[in-house]
């Protein structure tokens, strides 16, 4: 029996649901009459009385109305990222990156920003269940305590890096000596570690130092947005590229080969669209070119050298390959070659060999022990095998949701049915819970104590900001129950481990102080793993690669059959975040698609199949088939289709229900990342795609200028027509106080969209649902406009974060009939909601289309738990009111109030907007124009600055820096600079 039928769930999340109920004519007339009759009564009401309920006793660290911040960490697939979470009167309301944490440096991802909404998700599980019926946690604890020692106990977890968890597993094994742990995630990194094992004899982790790399070649690796170190790497990569401070600077060069355009690919200087299955051959081709160039690593077996000689490059990438290989060879020791997580082990081994040949290991790449515990340990396949053999008596699945995410050919469902006792612990009752005998709600990471390691090994702490909203145990508490602790406390477990780890020798007082300092900071200083000497066993590696090269060679070049590749969604990851409305409505970085996924294909394949975006296609492979709407993506590899994971949840909650298609049926255990042989056929049906940006071409207008480095050097002031004074009839404005302004460098904006979610969290911005997006009613104050330049198969992308430009001659201000939008003396274009009567004249007159209108009472319909997330310093807008970016005026005023109390002016860098704070690359800079020396002011002096739609004379306060690409000189013909 399923735990609860969906219709019995409280229907709380109306705006996230699909379509609002229609209003028929009778209903409309009734409501009109009723509201007319009641209109006068409002004045007759007695004054509503609020209650003030002070605490009965002082709470430490709390002053009503003053936010408190705590350091904690978010763990994704085993890797921790440091966060600082702001709590207002006991409610966590906003996640920021921890500026001190080496995996964050202050930046966050869209997922990190949205984790706060996961905490308040009204669909979270609320109680322990036994076969779908309410049960007690004590009952579960008794059951666990009564398990016999030899009970065939297995755990299925996400990959783990927590030292506390490892210690607890050892304790569990003392009680249950045969207990086994399998780890699984749909975005498995075993191939990475197997490749490292082939190269170095053990699964070492590569630590990239992008700030030192002159040349980066990313082979199907979205290292700026979708890999475990992405946030940190974005900052490092941007620091290197920002050496382009003037025309004389050298921004380095990024070469990218990938099947479907990603944020990394969109920032490339030199990109080729190539199927994921051809990446191995491309890596071999790179090695061949490097060997041919005389940089063969010593000890390379002659057999391998012979095979490499004349190794054919995959046809579409021949020019790319030779230019990239030349470029890499010119920067020995100052380059990075890296491959994506879904690439097979052999490709990773080849890449290690290339880096060794170029002398990059030890220079731009350090090797350390992996942060993950037992990264090559048993996985789902081993678990299924053991279950089929009847060796599994008790299975504990924690966090993971394998019945949704595992490849169906594993036969997990059948295997689960053979296990007598299955316990699922998760935030939500989902697909897996329904197949398990027991269910235990897990506590969110903002509700629990714990630890984990960052990608570089830094020991990070997870600190709760609120008691569990719906009861629930944390993962470590669940494991402690199996270790014989009937009612464990995560805090005590963590404290004990910490005390032991710091050694008994130290004075108790020092241990205590060190612990408090680490928890305050959110991590232990200098706890990252030390670099290991890169010792490649080149002869053995070479011999192992010979057969791989043979298959790569056999595959390469063949155009048919069509390849299908699967990638994590930048919004909902593998589907585990599918019930977060902010993420579902987040326009995907390149396609701008919201609410679901689509079969992405290139213009060439689409033309051959005769399908257009929105046509439903049937993808079938080996007797399995799914239907998905097609989406034509410029810059997509030909003969290939790609699908994002995370759609089509069957038990994911009210927001996730019915959104997107499940790519699962096409995945197989042997090829979870990509496979050849998919058949694509149009079905004749159409499905509307909720895309927020309808047009990606500039049609000859200079909306988002970009040029090559060579052209920039020849003519540094190429944006001169897009800045400077324009004649005006408008009266001048008096500028009083600090003049707030923003500068955005489009050369380092990857379009990752962390800023979009950060803005939503900070400013109480509602979501409107799929139908709302189709009706163009999305409410994002900040969107990222992506402009395509060049041809459809080799496009250049320019990401332009588009928000209220805070025009000094703002077209919206002249037309407001009630003065609801006005100009402040410090240069802000203000929006006063309580004055707005909703004529929408301002929006019509805004050339940037950044004003949003509340067509419905989106906020009033939200669930109570979601209301807990709201920022109390920003007005919650109601129906019929216009809204837009305010430059985070609440943060500006808070700093001004503090500075006035302290009798000083605002300091440089003191005001940080939400988008700026979240940005992993640091592309958005904010501040006062008076504060010379800050990046915001310095950047505005660069010759490539421009104002968006400058010719309209709006005099925006937001200034952009043009995108400069640096293609290799020998391929400059492919990068055309016209803005067609």
């Amino acid at each position, binding site marked *: 029996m399923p735990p609860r039928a969906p219709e019995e769930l409280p229907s709380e999340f109306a705006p996230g649901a699909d379509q609002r109920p229609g209003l028929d004519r009778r209903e409309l007339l009734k409501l009109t009459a009723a509201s007319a009759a009641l209109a006068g009564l409002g*004045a007759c009401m007695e*004054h509503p*009385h*609020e*209650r*003030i*309920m*002070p*605490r*009965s*006793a*002082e709470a430490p660290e709390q*002053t*009503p*109305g*003053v936010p408190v911040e705590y350091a904690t960490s978010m763990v994704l697939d085993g890797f921790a990222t440091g966060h600082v979470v702001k709590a207002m009167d006991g409610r966590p309301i906003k996640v920021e990156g921890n500026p001190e944490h080496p995996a964050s440096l202050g930046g966050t991802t869209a997922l990190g920003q949205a984790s706060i909404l996961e905490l308040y998700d009204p669909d979270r599980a609320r109680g322990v269940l036994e076969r779908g019926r309410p049960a007690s946690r004590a009952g579960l604890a008794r059951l666990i305590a009564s398990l016999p020692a030899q009970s065939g106990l297995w755990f299925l977890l996400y990959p783990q890096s927590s030292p506390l968890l490892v210690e607890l597993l050892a304790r569990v094994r003392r009680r249950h000596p045969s207990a086994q742990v399998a780890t699984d995630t749909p975005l498995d990194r075993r191939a990475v570690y197997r490749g490292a094992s082939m190269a170095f004899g053990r699964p070492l982790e590569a630590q990239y130092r992008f700030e030192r790399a002159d040349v980066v070649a990313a082979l199907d690796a979205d290292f700026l947005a979708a890999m475990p170190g992405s946030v940190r790497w974005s900052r490092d990569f941007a620091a290197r590229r920002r050496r382009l401070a003037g025309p004389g600077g050298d921004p380095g060069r990024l070469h990218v080969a990938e099947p479907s355009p990603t944020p990394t690919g969109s920032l490339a200087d030199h990109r080729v669209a190539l199927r994921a299955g051809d990446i191995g051959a491309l890596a071999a081709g790179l090695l061949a070119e490097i060997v041919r160039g005389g940089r063969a690593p010593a000890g390379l077996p002659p057999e391998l050298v012979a095979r490499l000689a004349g190794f054919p490059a995959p046809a579409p990438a021949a020019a790319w390959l030779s230019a990239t290989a030349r470029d890499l060879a010119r920067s020995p020791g100052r380059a990075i070659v890296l491959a994506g997580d879904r690439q097979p082990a052999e490709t990773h081994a080849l890449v290690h060999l290339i880096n060794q040949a170029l002398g990059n290991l030890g220079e731009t790449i350090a090797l350390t022990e992996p942060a993950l515990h037992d990264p090559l340990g048993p996985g789902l396949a081993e678990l299924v095998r053991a279950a089929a053999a009847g060796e599994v008596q008790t299975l504990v699945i924690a966090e993971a949701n394998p019945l949704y995410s595992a490849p169906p050919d594993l036969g997990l469902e059948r295997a689960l049915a053979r296990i007598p006792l299955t316990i699922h612990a998760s935030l939500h009752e989902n697909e897996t819970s329904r197949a398990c005998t027991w269910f235990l709600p897990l506590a969110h990471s903002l509700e629990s104590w714990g630890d984990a390691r960052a990608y570089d090994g830094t020991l990070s702490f997870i600190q709760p900001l609120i008691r569990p909203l719906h009861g629930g145990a944390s993962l470590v508490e669940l494991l402690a129950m199996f270790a014989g602790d009937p009612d464990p406390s995560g805090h005590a477990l963590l404290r004990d481990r910490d005390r032991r780890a710091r050694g008994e020798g130290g004075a108790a007082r020092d241990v205590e102080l060190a612990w408090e300092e680490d928890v305050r900071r959110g991590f232990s200083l200098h706890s990252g793993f030390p670099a290991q000497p890169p010792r490649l066993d080149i002869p053995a590696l070479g011999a192992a690669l010979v057969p791989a090269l043979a298959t790569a060679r056999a595959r390469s070049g063949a155009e048919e059959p069509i390849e299908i590749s699967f990638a994590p969604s930048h919004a909902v990851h593998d589907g585990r975040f599918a019930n977060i409305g902010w993420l579902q409505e987040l326009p995907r970085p390149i396609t701008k698609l919201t609410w679901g996924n689509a079969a992405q294909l290139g213009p060439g394949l689409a033309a051959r199949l005769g399908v257009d975006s929105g046509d439903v296609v049937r993808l079938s492979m080996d007797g399995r088939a799914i239907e998905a709407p097609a989406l034509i993506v410029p810059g997509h590899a030909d003969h290939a289709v790609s699908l994002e994971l995370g759609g089509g949840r069957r038990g994911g909650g009210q927001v996730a229900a019915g959104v997107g298609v499940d790519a699962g049926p096409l995945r197989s255990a042997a090829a979870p990342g990509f496979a050849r042989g998919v058949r694509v056929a149009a079905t004749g049906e159409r499905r509307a795609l909720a895309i927020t940006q309808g047009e990606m071409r500039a049609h000859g207008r200079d909306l988002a200028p970009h040029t090559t480095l060579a052209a920039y050097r020849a003519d540094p002031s190429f944006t001169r027509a897009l800045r400077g004074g324009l004649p005006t009839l408008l009266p001048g404005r*008096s500028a*009083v*106080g600090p003049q707030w302004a923003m500068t955005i460098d489009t050369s380092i904006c990857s379009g990752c969209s962390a800023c979009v979610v950060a803005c939503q969290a900070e400013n109480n911005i509602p979501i409107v649902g799929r139908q709302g997006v189709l009706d163009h009613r999305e409410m994002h104050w900040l969107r990222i406009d992506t402009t395509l330049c060049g041809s459809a198969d080799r496009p250049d992308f320019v990401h332009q974060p588009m928000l209220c430009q805070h025009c000094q001659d703002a077209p919206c201000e002249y037309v407001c009939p009630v003065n609801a939008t*006005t100009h*402040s*003396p*410090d240069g*802000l274009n*203000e929006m*006063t*909601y*309580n*004055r707005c009567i909703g004529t929408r004249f301002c929006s019509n007159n805004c050339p940037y289309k950044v004003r949003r209108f509340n067509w419905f009472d989106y906020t009033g319909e939200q669930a109570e738990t979601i209301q807990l997330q709201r920022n109390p*310093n*920003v*007005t*919650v807008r109601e129906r019929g009111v216009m809204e837009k970016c*305010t430059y985070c*005026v*609440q943060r500006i*005023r808070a700093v001004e*109030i503090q500075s*006035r*109390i302290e*009798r*000083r*002016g605002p300091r440089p860098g003191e005001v940080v907007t939400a988008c700026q704070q979240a940005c992993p690359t640091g592309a958005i800079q904010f501040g006062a124009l*008076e504060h010379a020396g800050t990046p915001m002011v310095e950047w505005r002096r660069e010759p490539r600055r421009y104002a968006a739609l400058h010719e309209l004379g709006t005099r925006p306060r937001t200034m952009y820096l043009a995108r400069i690409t640096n293609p290799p000189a020998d391929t400059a013909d492919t990068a055309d600079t016209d803005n067609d």
Partner: protein
Amino acid sequence: MASLYPAWSNTAYRLALFALGLGAAGLVVGPMIYVRTPYNTAQFEPWDQPVEFDHRHHARDDGIECLYCHSSAETSATAGVPTTAVCMGCHVQVWNTSPLLEPVRRSYFSGAPIRWRRVHTLPDFVYFNHAVHVRRGIDCQRCHGDVGRMARVMQTQPLTMGWCLDCHRSPERAAGPDPATPTPPRSAWGATFDMFTRHSFADRSITGLITCSACHR
């Protein structure tokens, strides 16, 4: 033939026209007057509170500073109502068996908050900050009246936007003597204030922020 209408009908017609005009004007002016009446602004209404707390006794007779109990007024946007523990700080010694203090003792020992009735209410779209006003030398009495003479606290000022702006346009009428140094150094902001304020207040950087986003965010 006698006239169809008597002679006074002209007068009646003129009066009716006049009344019509008056009524039309009244429809506009009436609500404008109404919203300014103390009835609409909820002034001068002493509300019952769950505890019979008398400010006259505490603030005037005993001379307890406002900030002793409403301590977050100096650091936070909200002045704060004291926790029950603050009440009990004195009342474990003084009047510790008084029946009037029964709700306080109940709250203290049970942990349940006292449900005070809010007297000074601003709409949710107004962001007033106590700290910056108090730290810049605006007396509590300026906005809250002489609480020390109130048995039950009531609102004495209209708390309308016009009332806020009156002070912000000419702060010298509102501010008392400088609470800190007599002549603090002129800040980088000095130039800002000359526009809005008299010179002496510019020195103290008491500003008359009258831009919308100063209060509406």
